């Protein structure tokens, strides 16, 4: 015997008790809430004016006492994290143990597809749909290189000249199928003042018709673009940065000549915004992450791990993590991801949901690393399993947060 689900669901709600709230009561409650919120906003504005005035008076009266206005953002602790619940805190769109045969994940592209290489032939690349598990294998490049990014218009393969450590890109225009090569010798690299002889290639990202390239020393970074249509290069970091980030919708950098600021440039051509970061004594901006709506900032203070904070693009500080020993920082559309060292040195991946305001830790094995972000999803890699000490397996998963 079988039962129809729709009929069972309708039956389950067939005898609803009388509604407690009348329509006027809900309208009144909504209106009261709106009025209350308006009062809160007005109160906060007045309070902010009072605080600003008070701080001004305080500075004049007792310069250097270090008093700060009361925080209006969330101060959170990773130590409050609870185990994440699949289906509520995150969704696993795809996962596999690459010890078995099958495509090897290389990264995630903006569409949410995974860049993969064939298990037995690393020069054979494709794009895997996490929802179906199907791979769309791509035409191999003229030289033996690996797929580093892809979009509807371009497939980009990268090789590193191992002698000079200079990047080369083999670029295929998907509309015509034509190939071209971009070679970036050191003479084309941006200069960095602190260690001019130690500049190295840091990474690359495909956005629209541009490749964004990071060059870096131990403490500084530079960002430049190569236009795939003209191969023209342009430097875009105001002459050097403490750190840079390239997101799907915006880029960010912390200019060397303006410590405590972060410039965010939307990729849709919108105006750049400069945010003020609350930089601690002896601290510098060591790591950035950027989305369409937020910037994540990790500070390094006297070369020790400093605070992690998240700012809205309006400049408002939204979240401060006060007990982080962060080794990785990433932002998805709705969550902050941190990898924290744990007691046995294996690391733990934590997620903070901006909407729900809760920390959770994810059930991964050891050494979890977010390899890339696409919207709400992130590609995560780790070794072993959450329940075993066997570290022989390597796992990859696409997890969706928020």
């Amino acid at each position, binding site marked *: 015997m079988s039962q129809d689900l729709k009929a069972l669901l309708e039956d389950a709600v067939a005898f609803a*008790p009388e509604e407690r709230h009348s329509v006027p009561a*809900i309208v009144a409650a909504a209106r009261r809430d709106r009025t209350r919120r308006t009062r809160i906003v007005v109160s906060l504005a007045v309070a902010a004016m009072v605080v600003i005035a008070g701080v001004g008076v305080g500075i004049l009266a007792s310069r250097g006492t270090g008093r700060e206005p009361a925080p209006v953002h969330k101060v959170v602790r990773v130590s409050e994290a609870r185990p994440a619940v699949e289906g*509520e805190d995150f969704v696993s769109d795809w996962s596999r143990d690459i010890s078995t045969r099958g495509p090897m994940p290389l990264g995630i592209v903006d569409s949410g597809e995974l860049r993969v290489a064939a298990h037995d032939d690393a020069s054979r690349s494709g794009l895997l749909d996490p929802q179906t598990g199907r791979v769309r294998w791509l035409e191999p490049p003229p030289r033996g290189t690996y797929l580093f990014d892809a979009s509807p218009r371009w497939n980009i393969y990268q090789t590193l000249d191992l002698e000079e450590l200079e990047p080369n890109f083999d670029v295929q225009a998907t509309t015509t199928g034509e190939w071209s090569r971009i070679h970036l010798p050191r003479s084309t690299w941006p200069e960095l003042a602190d260690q001019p002889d130690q500049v190295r290639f840091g990474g690359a990202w495909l956005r629209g018709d541009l490749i964004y390239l990071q060059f870096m020393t131990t403490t500084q970074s530079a960002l430049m673009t190569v236009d795939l249509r003209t191969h023209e290069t342009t430097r875009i970091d105001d002459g050097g940065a403490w750190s840079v980030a390239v997101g799907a919708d915006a880029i960010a950098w912390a200019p060397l000549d303006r410590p405590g600021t972060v410039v965010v440039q939307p990729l849709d051509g919108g105006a750049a915004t400069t945010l003020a970061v609350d930089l601690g004594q002896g601290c510098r901006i060591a790591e950035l992450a950027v989305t369409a709506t937020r910037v994540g900032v990790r500070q390094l203070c006297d070369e020790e791990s400093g605070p992690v904070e998240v700012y809205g693009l309006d400049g408002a500080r939204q979240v401060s993590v006060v007990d982080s020993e962060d080794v990785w920082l990433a932002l998805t559309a709705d969550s902050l991801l941190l990898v924290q060292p744990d007691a046995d040195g294996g690391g733990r991946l934590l997620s903070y949901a901006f909407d729900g305001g809760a920390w959770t830790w994810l059930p991964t094995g050891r050494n979890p690393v977010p390899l890339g972000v696409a919207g709400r999803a992130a590609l995560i890699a780790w070794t072993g399993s959450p329940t075993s000490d066997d570290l022989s397996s390597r796992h990859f998963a696409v997890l969706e947060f928020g």
Partner: protein
Amino acid sequence: MARRDDEEFAVFVAASQASLRRTAYLLCGDWQLASDHVQDALIKVFRRWSRLHDDGALIAYARRAVVSVVIDNSRRRSSTETPLAAVVETAATAPNGADELVDRDLMLRCLRTLPARQRACVVLRYYDDLAVSEVAAALGINEGTVKSQTARGLTALKAAYQQATGEEITAGGARA
């Protein structure tokens, strides 16, 4: 907000409240909680009334708000939820004299064994008759995730129901 907006909001509440409350009940399993969730959701609707009213997205936003409120609430309550084994055992050993009540209660209990997002996918697809794209919009996730979450939820729901009753659930006719 102008008085005319108040009146239009009242009309919307009157028209949508019962339906939203039934959806909320299937998601949370408690009529009183469902009423509270719907009120919270409608307050969210009221805050954005002008914008929503202009682009005709009222019911979709209201449904999304309900689901969001229920899931947020379930996160806070997740530590108190009942494990599957206890749920099914309780349902299966209920007295025979209250079959109809038990049937209704059983479906709620089986739904409660699903993670919140899978539960929302199943309810929105098979009770509210939403298309995959509409569920994706309501939950703020992509369509592929809706499909996979619905499939997993459906499998788990069928298993829980069969374990409790020995009967199968058929689920046909959902919109593409």
